[in-house]
């Protein structure tokens, strides 16, 4: 229900939600044609942080591209590592030991919680609340400490190799993860839900704002929490199972309403599901090596390969074309936020500026992932 408005279109002015704006969390520019405070037409302009990842992929070998994957979506870098490792293992036919698969799932799910925490903080910063950011960062620092112990970096991980993972996890990591899960489960109802989710100002601010229908999601190719917030039950970990996800039982939060509140609740429940996955993975963690055998220089067969991975923002696809020599002939990265943002123009029409920004916040954008 956006406020019904008769757009007179006679005195509209163009407002530049410029590359440098606190609400765009990066360098997205949206050209807004405004009528008073109502948005008549919104057109995102991209490319302000295009960093030539696809050209670099063609330049270097398969292994040299792994650090680049983390620089695209630095909030869920491990899922990007996982996607790139999956497509190359599929192409070159490399086996990954069981323990490595489990460690991959544990670290990816931990990173997903960290990504949702940062989205939650930035989303409330957009709505004017400053304090939740500090509490979410408090929890996120705990995850970063855990992941830093085994991967060595805080944000841009380069942890996965083509036949497993770089470093084995030790008991301290397992104990630390269990403590973290217990702590976050304790804080979640009181701090995140009572203080913020049930806050009347927040509910009024995001309920019935930015309605996205399931048909719009399909036509614009929106996936992830944006699609699950509009009633589409599509999660790659369930629909196209990869790695060892089939061995865990977790469910996919789907909310039919399709407004910003639904997307908000999808992500909050997803944090809970990720914790369930981590616990089951830690219980069933097998022994054995973490690195399988992989040829030093990979020369996969010529052909077309595609792999999809579920990141915190949607389905990340790697369209890889190989022609038999040691570096990829062509790599197209299907970034989830690229499609999620493409429906912003159509949905934001007729909304107030403040509501349009709340809607953009609920889409959870990471700009370097859009511009690649």
């Amino acid at each position, binding site marked *: 229900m956006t406020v019904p408005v008769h757009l007179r279109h006679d005195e509209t002015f163009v407002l530049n939600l410029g590359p*440098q704006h606190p609400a765009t969390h990066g360098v997205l520019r949206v050209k807004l044609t405004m009528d008073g405070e109502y948005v008549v037409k919104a057109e995102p302009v991209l490319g302000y942080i295009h960093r030539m990842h696809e050209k670099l992929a063609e330049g270097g070998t398969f292994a040299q591209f792994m650090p680049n994957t983390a620089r695209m979506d630095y909030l869920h870098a491990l899922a990007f590592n996982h996607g790139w490792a999956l497509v190359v293992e599929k192409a070159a036919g490399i086996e990954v030991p069981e323990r490595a698969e489990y460690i991959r799932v544990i670290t990816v799910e931990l990173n997903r919680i960290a990504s949702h925490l940062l989205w939650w903080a930035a989303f409330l910063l957009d709505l004017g609340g400053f304090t939740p*950011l*500090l509490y979410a960062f408090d929890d996120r*620092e705990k995850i970063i400490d855990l992941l830093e112990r085994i991967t060595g970096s805080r944000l841009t991980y380069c942890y996965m190799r083509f036949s497993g993972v770089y470093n084995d996890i030790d008991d301290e990591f397992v104990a630390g993860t269990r403590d973290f899960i217990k702590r976050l489960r304790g804080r979640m109802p009181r701090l995140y839900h009572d203080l913020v989710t049930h806050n009347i100002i927040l509910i009024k601010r995001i309920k019935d704002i930015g309605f996205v229908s399931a048909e719009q999601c399909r036509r614009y190719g929106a996936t992830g929490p944006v699609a699950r917030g509009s009633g589409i039950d599509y999660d790659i970990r369930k629909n196209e199972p990869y790695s060892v996800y089939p061995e865990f039982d977790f469910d996919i939060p789907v909310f039919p309403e399709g407004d910003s509140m639904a997307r908000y609740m999808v992500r909050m429940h997803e944090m809970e599901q990720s914790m369930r996955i981590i616990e089951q993975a830690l219980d069933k963690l097998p022994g054995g090596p973490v690195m399988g055998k992989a040829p030093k220089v990979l020369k996969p067969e010529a052909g077309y390969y595609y792999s999809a991975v579920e990141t915190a923002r949607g389905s990340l696809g790697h369209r890889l074309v190989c022609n038999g020599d040691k570096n990829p002939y062509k790599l197209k990265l299907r970034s989830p936020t690229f499609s999620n943002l493409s429906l912003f123009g159509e949905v934001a029409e007729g909304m107030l500026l403040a509501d349009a920004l709340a809607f953009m916040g609920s889409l959870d954008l990471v700009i370097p992932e859009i511009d690649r």
Partner: protein
Amino acid sequence: MGEENVPASIVQFAQLDKLLNLGRANSLWPMTFGLACCAIEMMCTGGSRYDISRFGAEVFRPSPRQSDVMIVAGTINKKLELAVKTLYDQMPEPKWVIAMGNCAISGGPFKVKGNYNVVEGADKLFPVDVYIPGCPPRPEALLEGIMTLEEKITGKRRWPRVHPG
């Protein structure tokens, strides 16, 4: 870190200058100008654990008119070059620039033969005062960068410098 004094005005009031520099050093208001991965580390520095507000620098002003230091946290590319230059020009005079991360120092991982779109370093656009290496640099490195900037402004170091090794 030279002892080079920032000349505040034509007429030099030694003591007043010292006092003003001390005031400026203790209230460096950064501009929210996060571009990429380093912006997340800048937000972590504003968080509770690293707490940039101890140095009076937690007021992240969105508009260039009210900020003193521009922390270039991320990659500048050719499409953004003009916008960054305008933002730098819009800042009132005693302004400083911290180039945070390898991309702002020299283009970082994108300084390759086939580079057609990334500006290789912020110092190609405007003078940079403090360089903080790292990809992304840790929040402690950003705090060290701010302390180095304060030392450059006032000439005195706030905490004893920790020499590695």
